[in-house]
């Protein structure tokens, strides 16, 4: 059994590290309250999302839309209008989910926000297609034309309508390239650029909504409401996706201080900057980094801090550290980063943090490079000595990155630590090493009280899925599992 067990030791331990300033332990029940509040915010978001769709339809109802359905043609037209309103509303919701609004991020997390964003993709496209088809049929019937001639008429004769047709084509392109089957055939960058066309798709769809649509004619309150939600969405995108990152980059003025090898193909990138006190306690959350060097600046890297910021100046001057493994062409360049390279950052994002805690006990399970965010989380997340367990998985001890630092932290704060090394096992707990599986170990064997703990999981997607399945069998409820998916 290549596992290693450290009995819980009191917080004041003897490791060579400087004082760790472990966060003050909160009162009992604090995490449960935090969880209840987060659920309340989740419900609020659910209500807002559904209510906004209802409101879009209500705009039309309030205009007497339903009372005007007197002919079959009017019925088709009405269906088309409602589909268009609901479809546009879903598109705006999608944009808001992708806008990295802090309220959404600390409520459901970045990855779940993007998951909902993705789930809305197809429904919104179907609604927009239905909008176009039903309107063409309805208008056509009113004039005695077939839908195709009617569409051509609309394109040719009605101002702003050609833009709406362009918009429809763009929406189709964006959704099709986002389908998993299609997306896998293209590099990330291709998908990303096509996805940027969403903004063009939305922009070209807006003129006809206000000029052709009678519902939003000048002087109606519906027009003001629609304008307001469009402007709000646009502002949120501009602020949180462009302005705030630029401000953060200017505020912290990060430069690469040094790049040091941790293991073969793995480096620590240490960056020097200002006002880093504002980033304290973000362990586990991730930032999007751009290293502003030729050929690299456009490539965004999502990395978590692998240690709390270290301050050495009166205004929060100090250093940040990320630990990076050479995974792709983009990461390979990082190993050769030059000292002094300027760094742009966005974030922090995600819920792999203390903000997600629901219980007093905590378990952290990491594999490979996924160990490093847990290293930072372990440093600050509050727990009483003996109430934390850390499970680290690697092929060899060398693959337990930052293993030494984690050992020190566990000793200092009183956490149990297991190194799970060896080749991958077979059977149901394939996240464990082979010998552990053959001995019949599961998650419960290492953490008997796991059902009463928050479980942070960080590692490759398939491995993490196995861990989460095992945790579920051990009685861990869904809301206790905290896992950030980095795969796009």
């Amino acid at each position, binding site marked *: 059994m290549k596992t290693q067990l450290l009995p819980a030791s009191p917080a004041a331990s003897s490791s060579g590290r400087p004082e760790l300033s472990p966060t003050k332990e909160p009162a009992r029940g604090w995490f449960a309250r935090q969880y209840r509040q987060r*659920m309340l915010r*989740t*419900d609020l978001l*659910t*209500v807002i*999302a*559904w*209510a906004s*769709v*209802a*409101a879009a*339809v*209500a*705009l*039309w*109802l*309030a*205009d*007497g*839309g*339903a*009372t*005007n359905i007197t002919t079959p*043609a009017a019925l088709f*037209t009405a269906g088309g209008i409602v589909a268009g309103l609901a479809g546009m509303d879903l598109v705006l919701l999608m944009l808001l989910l992708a806008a990295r609004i802090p309220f959404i991020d600390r409520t459901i997390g970045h990855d779940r926000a993007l998951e909902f964003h993705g789930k809305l993709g197809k429904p919104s496209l179907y609604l927009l297609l239905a909008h176009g088809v039903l309107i063409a049929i*309805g*208008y056509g019937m*009113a*004039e005695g034309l077939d839908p195709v001639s009617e569409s051509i*008429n609309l394109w040719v*004769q*009605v*101002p702003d309508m050609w833009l709406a047709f362009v918009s429809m084509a763009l929406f189709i392109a964006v959704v099709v390239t986002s389908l998993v089957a299609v997306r896998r055939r293209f590099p990330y960058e291709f998908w990303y650029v096509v996805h940027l066309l969403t903004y063009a798709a939305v922009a070209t769809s807006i003129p006809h909504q206000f*000029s*052709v*649509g*009678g*519902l939003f*004619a*000048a*002087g109606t309150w519906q027009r003001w409401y629609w304008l307001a939600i469009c402007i709000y969405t646009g502002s949120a995108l501009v602020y949180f996706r462009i302005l705030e990152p630029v401000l953060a980059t200017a505020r912290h003025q990060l430069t690469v201080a040094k790049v040091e090898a941790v293991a073969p193909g793995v480096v620590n990138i240490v960056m020097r900057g200002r006002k880093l006190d504002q980033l304290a306690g973000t362990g586990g959350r991730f930032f999007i980094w751009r290293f502003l060097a030729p050929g690299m600046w456009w490539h965004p890297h999502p990395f978590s801090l692998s240690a709390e910021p270290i301050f050495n100046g009166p205004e929060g001057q100090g250093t940040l550290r990320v630990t990076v493994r050479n995974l792709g062409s983009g990461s390979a360049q990082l190993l050769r980063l030059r000292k002094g390279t300027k760094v742009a950052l966005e974030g922090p994002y995600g819920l792999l943090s203390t903000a997600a805690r629901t219980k007093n006990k905590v378990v952290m399970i990491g594999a490979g490079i996924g160990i490093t965010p847990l290293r930072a989380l372990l440093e600050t997340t509050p727990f009483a000595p003996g109430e934390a367990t850390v499970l680290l998985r690697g092929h060899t001890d060398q693959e337990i990155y930052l293993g030494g630092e984690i050992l020190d932290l566990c000793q200092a704060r009183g956490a149990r630590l297991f190194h799970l090394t060896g080749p991958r096992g077979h059977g149901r707990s394939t996240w464990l090493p082979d010998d552990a599986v053959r001995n019949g170990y599961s998650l419960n064997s290492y953490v008997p009280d796991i059902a009463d703990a928050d479980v942070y999981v960080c590692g490759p997607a398939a491995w993490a899925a196995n861990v989460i399945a095992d945790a579920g069998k051990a009685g861990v409820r869904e*809301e206790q599992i905290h896992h950030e998916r980095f795969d796009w």
Partner: protein
Amino acid sequence: MKIRGTVAAALASAGILLAGWQTGTQVGGISTVASSTTATGTTGSTGTGSSGTGSSGSGTTGTGTSGSSSTSGTSGTSGSTGSSSSSGSSSSSGSTGTSASGTYKGTAVQTRFGPVQVQITVAKGKITDVTALQLTNTDGKSIQISNRAAPLLRSKVLAAQSANVQTVSGATITSDAYLTSLQAAIDAAHL
């Protein structure tokens, strides 16, 4: 927790939809009243004389109130109707008006922006006036278009004495409907 959110969302959505529906039925009532008054206004303009009842009878929508308002022949065009004194013969327009004098209604042509219907006034086999009974009016923009296109079309038709005139650019849909209705009116007048 999930159930609480879903229930709350469903209730909020239902409430919003209900409020929208409630407002809508009120607005709907007003809008039908409004459309009926505009209808009577235009039909009133044709009558001027005694035949107010005849025209209101054939008026499209609920023109119950038209009797009272018909006396105030609104538009300037009614003047010309009066001068031609063909109002008396309008009773024949309903049926087989062989003498090509009187007022003749075209069919109401449906467009995506609302129905269009015109009426022509004929004196001694000549179109002396064209009145729009209904014009595209579903929203501000189409009303604007209608107001611009109708006078242009009227003068073109009076000059050409037929429906074979150029459509007004930027108001193609309204023009097409206008001329279609006009042709029907011309057919009815056996011109």
